[in-house]
């Protein structure tokens, strides 16, 4: 079992760090209190990426978000990648580390997408074993993020909240709750997003993501939402954030914007809105 508890992020707003915002972030004229980086972008030997991350970590808490562990893989975790991750987390000592409920590797190839797993007893056992392996190797608790789903499996025997609750219970990992992912999956698969939130063990949530998606159709008349991280969050997603925060109280909330990254003032505006949502629930609790 892991022996080091996470430091934890501030109960405040963070943004996904993009190098083009380096100077704006260091200016300090914004509500952002912490930053999230993608682990794999900082696994080179050195250069500007590492230098910037070191500089940022002197001023801001950092959350490291992995996209390459392939926790749902049927073929096991890559020991080299676990070692790279441990090296990064050991020197950076971030406030949190998170990964995805997904797989992305097969037969030695990295597929560069977060691919879905069926929610069965077998996959539950496998994923829990992988999370325990990660936590033991890293010597710290991790957070697991709920996916955006576009399809379902005929052999699933758990619904997603039950599956995530069981993983957290068995492994001691926390949850990274992406409210946009809930909305995307619920729309695509005809779930009730509010019911999803109510069914999840929100006491395990260590971090929240909010971001944008775009709308498409599935060719059979059904709206299909794509988790693109390329737009502002829509109103129903902000409502879901409020619903979660009203139960959990203030939490670290990340504005996630990874493609078609906007100028800083636009990202700052999204961050201000998330900050207001956190402050609102703080005021209500007082």
């Amino acid at each position, binding site marked *: 079992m892991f022996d080091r508890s996470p430091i934890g992020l501030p109960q405040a707003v963070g943004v996904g760090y993009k190098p083009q915002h380096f100077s704006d972030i260091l200016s300090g004229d914004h509500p952002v209190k912490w930053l999230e980086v993608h682990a*794999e*972008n900082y*696994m*080179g*030997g*050195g*250069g*500007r*990426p590492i*230098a910037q991350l070191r500089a940022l970590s002197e001023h801001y808490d950092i959350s490291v978000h992995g*996209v*390459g562990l392939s926790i749902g*893989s*049927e*073929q096991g975790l890559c020991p080299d*990648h676990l070692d*790279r991750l441990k090296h990064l987390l050991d020197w950076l000592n971030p406030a949190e580390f998170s990964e995805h409920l997904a*797989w*992305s*590797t*097969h*037969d*030695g*190839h*990295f*597929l*560069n*997408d977060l*691919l*879905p797993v*069926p929610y069965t007893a077998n996959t539950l056992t496998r994923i829990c074993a992988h999370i325990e392996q990660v936590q033991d190797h890293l010597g710290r608790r991790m957070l697991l993020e709920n996916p955006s789903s*576009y*399809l*379902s*499996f*005929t*052999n699933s025997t758990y619904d997603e909240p039950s599956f995530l609750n069981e993983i957290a219970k068995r492994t001691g990992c926390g949850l990274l709750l992406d409210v946009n992912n809930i909305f995307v999956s619920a729309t*695509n698969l005809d779930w009730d997003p509010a019911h999803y939130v109510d069914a999840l063990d929100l006491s395990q949530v260590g971090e929240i993501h909010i971001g944008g998606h775009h709308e498409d*159709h*599935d*060719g*059979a008349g*059904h709206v*299909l939402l*794509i988790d693109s991280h390329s737009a502002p969050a829509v109103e129903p997603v902000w409502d879901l954030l409020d619903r979660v925060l009203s139960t959990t109280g203030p939490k670290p909330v990340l504005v996630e914007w990874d493609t078609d990254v906007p100028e800083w003032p636009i990202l700052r505006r999204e961050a201000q809105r998330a900050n207001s949502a956190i402050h609102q629930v703080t005021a209500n609790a007082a």
Partner: protein
Amino acid sequence: MQPEFTTSLFDADRLPPEVIAEAQSTSSRARFGIYRNNVIVSLCDALEATFPRTRAAIGATNFRNIARVFVTEAPPTSPLMFHYGDKFPAFLAQFPPLKKLGYLHDLARIEYLMCQSYHAAEHNRPDWEAISQISDTEFLNSTCLLGPEVFVVSSPYPIFDLWRVSKTGGPPPRPEAQSVLVVRPEFDPMVLQIPNAMARAIVLLNSGHSFGETQAKLNQETDQFDITETVEKLAKYNCFIQIGAL
């Protein structure tokens, strides 16, 4: 499930795996197509990010079409996307429609090495004060260690001129063999043109030959070669980690 899923990702003619709900329906095929699209497009995007001048040289549409073939044949083997594309230059060289653009391999190779240089580790520098105290003979008997950000590309094509015009435009360069040195004095890699003999010297130094051995080998080709110029060039751009034991 994952072997079948992976096979379907890279073959647009295949149906989604049977384990997916209503796998044969129009809706499920469209839904599975999102994953297929995410994989192919994100890998093509990664290649575009690493090879912008190669893309400019052959045109955006051609590049995208070729990249789609490459990512299907050679998906990455690591989640570190800045390492992806090491086999892309060789793929371009063997891609039949590009046979007449023989220089593309070397242009793409420079771009890939620039990306590796950008992410390379910082390193110590030699103690130049101590080196200045050793005799010429001792120096010529010394070997050196170059930084992980340093690369040489020698080409039968005017590759430096082609590299330059790929950004600034200009008339096609006159045919000649050229060599370049990739360095990174601080954070931004640079591409420098160097004499072909200097390129061969750097390759020899990097494979463990002493300065004297390198001088002697190059003198077999030309009596114009002076190892001092190579040392000065490498020193100017902070390429040395170590010289001899110093």
